[in-house]
């Protein structure tokens, strides 16, 4: 038997470290495994014994690119445990923070990691040398969106103003008008970005799976709602344990999940599939113009879905901000009495559903924590997609196969440090005797 092994040492242009192992027997995929090698950081143990006030700022360090949504979800779960009611203004400001951080995260992924693949460049550095106008668009979107996160959150990364009960400080009236101006500019640039991603031709793959996303009250939510599944019944965040199984996989430092025993997808495409009818009219117009049929079963279209979300979330943010344009926001007094309790929260991170779950003792010290990140949920589905994709591309040159598989993984916008955890690609072709 002749055996052929080809390997790629690192999956680059993703966040964190992971490795891919594929074994083929003729056209049959024997194994397609993605293993996360990011060193374990044990966040769920790190918070135990810590004061509830310290928990969000520890939890936010799970991830540098989606630290905002970790902060917000952590705070929401603590409030749920302690029965804290928040004001409408606080909820709106959190929605606004999630809109801007999602735009910031999506632009980083779309332009710095994903687009060089579609445009035939090795990376953004080469792209910067040969297509400067393209990088200018990316940089402007990054500058504006991170600036807004900084205005609301105090810092553009690891925000400091959000706290249990509300915000240490709220944007001033002048900040609100500046944010409206910036979001109008973001929206114009986002429409350009969406048209650009609409023109890209990703590899073909139809692989129907289950799509989970937050849904509720006739909106396309980031901050609240129940967890909805496209092809079956949804569930409430507090029932996640009954519906999502977490598995410890020996080869990986991430815990992988299944939804009622099956792989599933979370993220922009899942949100689009579940909630497209509630998109803003500009985003809907672009979706119609693209000719994309929804629900869409091609994981590669996750990138196009992200670009549509840039437009949609700018519209949502503009709508929210205009409500405060005239009267501004009020500084609110926060008074928390810690109490014993258990709390759950689910938000939409840029990469999909994020669940935080804690228990606190009567002094407000964390006694238990469980966190389910989007990439943990997507890994099984990436493997499932590879099973279907590899036989169709196996006759292509090795370098091409590797490139397509990398594009597939990258299309999910994986965050391996979130899942606890870069890609070594190790493909073994087991030829027939």
């Amino acid at each position, binding site marked *: 038997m002749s055996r052929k092994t080809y390997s790629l040492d690192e999956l680059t242009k993703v*966040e964190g470290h992971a490795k891919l192992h594929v074994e083929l027997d003729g056209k049959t995929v024997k194994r397609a495994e993605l293993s996360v090698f990011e060193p374990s950081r*044990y*966040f769920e143990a790190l918070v135990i014994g810590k004061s509830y006030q*310290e928990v969000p700022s520890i939890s936010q360090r799970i991830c540098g690119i989606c*630290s905002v949504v970790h902060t917000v979800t952590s705070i929401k779960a603590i409030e749920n445990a302690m029965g804290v009611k928040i004001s409408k203004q606080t909820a709106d400001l959190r929605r606004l923070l999630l809109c801007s951080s999602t735009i910031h995260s999506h632009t*980083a992924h779309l332009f710095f990691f994903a687009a060089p693949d579609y445009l035939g460049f090795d990376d953004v550095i080469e792209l910067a040398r040969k297509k400067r106008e393209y990088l200018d668009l990316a940089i402007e979107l990054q500058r504006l969106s991170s600036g807004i996160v900084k205005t609301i959150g105090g810092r553009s*990364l*690891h925000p400091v*103003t959000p706290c249990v009960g509300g915000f240490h400080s709220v944007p001033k009236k002048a900040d609100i008008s500046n944010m409206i101006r910036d979001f109008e500019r973001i929206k114009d640039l986002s429409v350009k970005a969406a048209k650009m991603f609409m023109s890209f031709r990703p590899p073909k793959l139809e692989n129907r799976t289950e799509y989970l996303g937050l849904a509720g009250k006739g909106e396309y939510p980031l901050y609240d709602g129940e967890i909805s599944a496209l092809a079956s019944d949804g569930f409430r965040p507090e029932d996640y344990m009954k519906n999502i199984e977490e598995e*410890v996989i020996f080869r990986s430092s991430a815990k992988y999940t299944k939804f009622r025993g099956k792989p599933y997808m979370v993220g922009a495409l899942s949100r689009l599939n579940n909630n497209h009818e509630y998109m803003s009219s500009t985003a809907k117009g672009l979706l119609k113009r693209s000719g994309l049929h929804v629900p869409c079963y091609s994981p590669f279209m996750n990138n196009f879905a992200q670009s549509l979300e840039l437009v949609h979330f700018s519209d949502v943010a503009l709508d929210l901000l205009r409500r405060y344009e005239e009267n501004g926001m009020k500084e609110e007094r926060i008074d928390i009495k810690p109490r014993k309790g258990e709390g759950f929260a689910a938000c939409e991170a840029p990469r999909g559903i994020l669940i935080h779950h804690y228990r606190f003792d009567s002094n407000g010290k964390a006694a238990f924590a469980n966190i389910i990140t989007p990439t943990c949920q997507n890994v099984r589905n990436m493997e499932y997609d590879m099973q279907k994709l590899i036989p169709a591309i196996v006759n292509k040159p090795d370098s091409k196969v590797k490139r397509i598989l990398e594009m597939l993984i990258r299309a999910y916008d994986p965050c391996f440090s979130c899942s606890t955890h870069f890609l070594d690609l190790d493909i073994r072709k087991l030829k027939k005797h």
Partner: protein
Amino acid sequence: MVAVEKKSKPRVGFFGMTSCKGCYFQFLLLGKKLIDIFDSLEIEHFWMLKEDNELGEFDIAIMDGAVSNKDNAEFVRKVREKSRYLIAYGTCACFGGIPALRNDVSGFHEKVYGKPIKLKPLQNVDPLDMHVKVDYHMVGCPVNEQELLNVLRDLLLGKRPGEPDYPVCVDCKKAGIRCLFKDGIPCMGPVTIGGCGAPCPASRSPCDGCRGKLPDANWGSEYDLMLEHGLTKDHIIQKFAKYARIAKPGRVKGK
């Protein structure tokens, strides 16, 4: 000290170990300055941005993250051997950061993964200079991207960049920010390494100490102040040990 030869573009490597990768993203926040960086430096290694990454020789190595296992320890030694100037990039690299909280927790593997499984033995999470010689400590969780720009500029000019040696309070005074203690808000600013521009106090959020411990700070006085402002003894200790278990970088172990 001339750290970088001027004749050709300096070869730069960005590396990451155990961290949240947030300090990498701070680099992307440099915006239009990124184009100058791409023009004036040869970025030879950057997993997150580049397809081909070679572990060659580097004039400047920028290392993000702490050392949390044998692979990390070997990797940082290898990078050190190949680099003329090594920057510990971010609080995890300088002090161990939030991941080093695990050094205090027992049975953490079972708490996270449920049952004991066979893995390589776990070691403490260490700052880089417990393993190699570090030339510059860029503290912060996340780092201040302007500081990175200043350090790179100094190195390009053949200057030796200086590390900040003053508390966050100096940043507050410079920016005209009203002291949070005056409003009854306990703050870690007096005992924390400054140079960040005090973005947290500027938004009326207390300094959390993310830039690590100022070597000659008055810890006793800070403790009393925190106690006066209503924090429990237990909570104060949690705050003091949050980002930096080691008080001063650069003193632990030379190469």
